[in-house]
């Protein structure tokens, strides 16, 4: 029991550390808030110019894209972990985590917590800004259901970040193709436009990743968009990604660290 409590404290300590480091850069939050404002403003006016089949009004396209933008920022946070690992390797602090009783695998998993919480807060802020400044109409009766849905989506996205983190431990680079994967998932997941407008082969790709069911479910719950796939199978797909890939990604991370210790490359950066 005391071991579990100590582990929980260690887990939270890593989150607090990341919070303190984040807060020490005072302009970072301002920059992220301004980015959200500019993105919303841009897409608000784009929604007034572009008429797409499947959208009854500019407001319905604006709601569609705002939820996509909020979710892509959440997904992006999962892919920040490799860069954090890279920074830890260079600073020599990763060694400290490896040599701690808490251990490197639990530490890396704990390192995902702060970026996820921050991205969740920024996503809520983006939606709130959309409501206040641009008249975004949320479907309030189902909004509370979006919270567990986004939690499930996070668990489905997280393994990708952990797998890339494992790769970073091995090849010592932060950008190990994460930007390509984010771009591909955003493109085929329908952030800016419905998946239906994509060529058939890209639509097939969209079915193979968790971003598509996540946007489908969250758009329905937040702005009452019509479902492209019913909600049950979409949630099941997200749970499948989380249930299968999360243990696999943790095993991969553990293996990468142990291999680094065996070969002695864990000290390299």
């Amino acid at each position, binding site marked *: 029991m*005391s071991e579990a409590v*100590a582990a929980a*404290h*260690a887990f939270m300590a890593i989150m607090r550390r990341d919070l303190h480091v984040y807060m020490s850069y005072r302009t970072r939050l301002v920059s992220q808030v301004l980015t959200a404002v500019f993105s919303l403003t841009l897409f608000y006016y784009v929604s007034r110019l572009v008429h797409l089949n499947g959208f009854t009004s500019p407001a319905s396209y604006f709601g569609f894209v705002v939820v996509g933008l909020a979710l892509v920022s959440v997904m992006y946070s999962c892919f920040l972990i490799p860069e954090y690992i890279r920074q830890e390797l260079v600073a020599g602090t990763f*060694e400290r985590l490896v040599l701690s*009783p808490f*251990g490197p695998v639990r530490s890396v998993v704990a390192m995902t917590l702060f970026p996820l919480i921050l991205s969740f807060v920024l996503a809520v802020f983006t939606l709130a800004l959309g409501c206040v400044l641009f008249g975004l109409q949320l479907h309030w009766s189902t909004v509370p259901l979006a919270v567990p849905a986004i939690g499930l989506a996070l668990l489905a996205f997280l393994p990708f970040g952990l797998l890339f983190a494992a790769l970073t431990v091995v090849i010592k680079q932060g950008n190990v193709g994460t930007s390509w994967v984010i771009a591909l998932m955003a493109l085929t997941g329908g952030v800016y436009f419905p998946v239906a407008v994509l060529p058939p082969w890209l639509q097939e790709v969209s079915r193979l990743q968790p971003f598509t069911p996540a946007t489908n479910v969250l758009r329905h719950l937040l702005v009452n968009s019509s479902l492209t796939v019913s909600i049950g199978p979409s949630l099941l797909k997200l749970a499948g990604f989380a249930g299968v890939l999360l243990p696999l990604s943790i095993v991969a991370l553990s293996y990468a660290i142990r291999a680094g210790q065996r070969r002695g490359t*864990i*000290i390299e950066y």
Partner: protein
Amino acid sequence: MTPRSLEIAEPVPRARDGIDLVVATRAPESAAAPLRLRGVTKSWHPDRPPVLDELDLTLDPGSMTWVGGRNGVGKTTMLRIAAGLIDSDSGRVEVWGVAAGENRSRYQQLVSFLPAGDRGLYARLTVRKQLEFCARIAMLPRPRFREAVDEAIDTFDLHELIERRVDRMSMGQRQRLRIAMTFLPRPEVVLLDEPLTSLDGEGAALLHQAIEKLIADDGAVLWCSPSGENLDIPFDSRWTIEHGKLVAA
């Protein structure tokens, strides 16, 4: 010549900080020691001689051992293996009978490593936050957490620096903090790689006091630094690494 062997009959590690120390039952000739390296071999290149070649070293309880040697001879490699950071190709390393591969979390509770250089600190955190973080990932039990942090601040006289960010500190101040973090979890074995780097006389004196306290509690210290460094320190034994093996200095 091999390092002196353990001369105590039944070494019993102290149960500190709520950590339940378990020592494997062993035959007398392999009785548990604070740190024991047996036949440790490590090669970095398959076509070159191993940097450590069947190296043996045993630290006694309450002892301070120095290992020197020229640059690149394998001192840091030996320390990294002893710390559990990297694996040896063959041989066994154990702290009080516990090998890292058998119980990594317990091993890391027993041993603490100060790497050479000035890395391993979070530049944007204050000294207090750095120490608190260190105590948390050391998984100190709740009653010991605050006490350990305060003790580290007192022992290494960090009061004036406590709210200062690491990136605003001098190299010597950072080194003092790094040493404080090494001793903070109250390890049984402390591994020091060139610990005097950037330290002023006051910092060095604080380090010696911390070592004396650890030794008085039957802990053990392994200190590595290049041969030729003027060390006026009463080590219990002195060795150098030559051709991958320890030789009495």
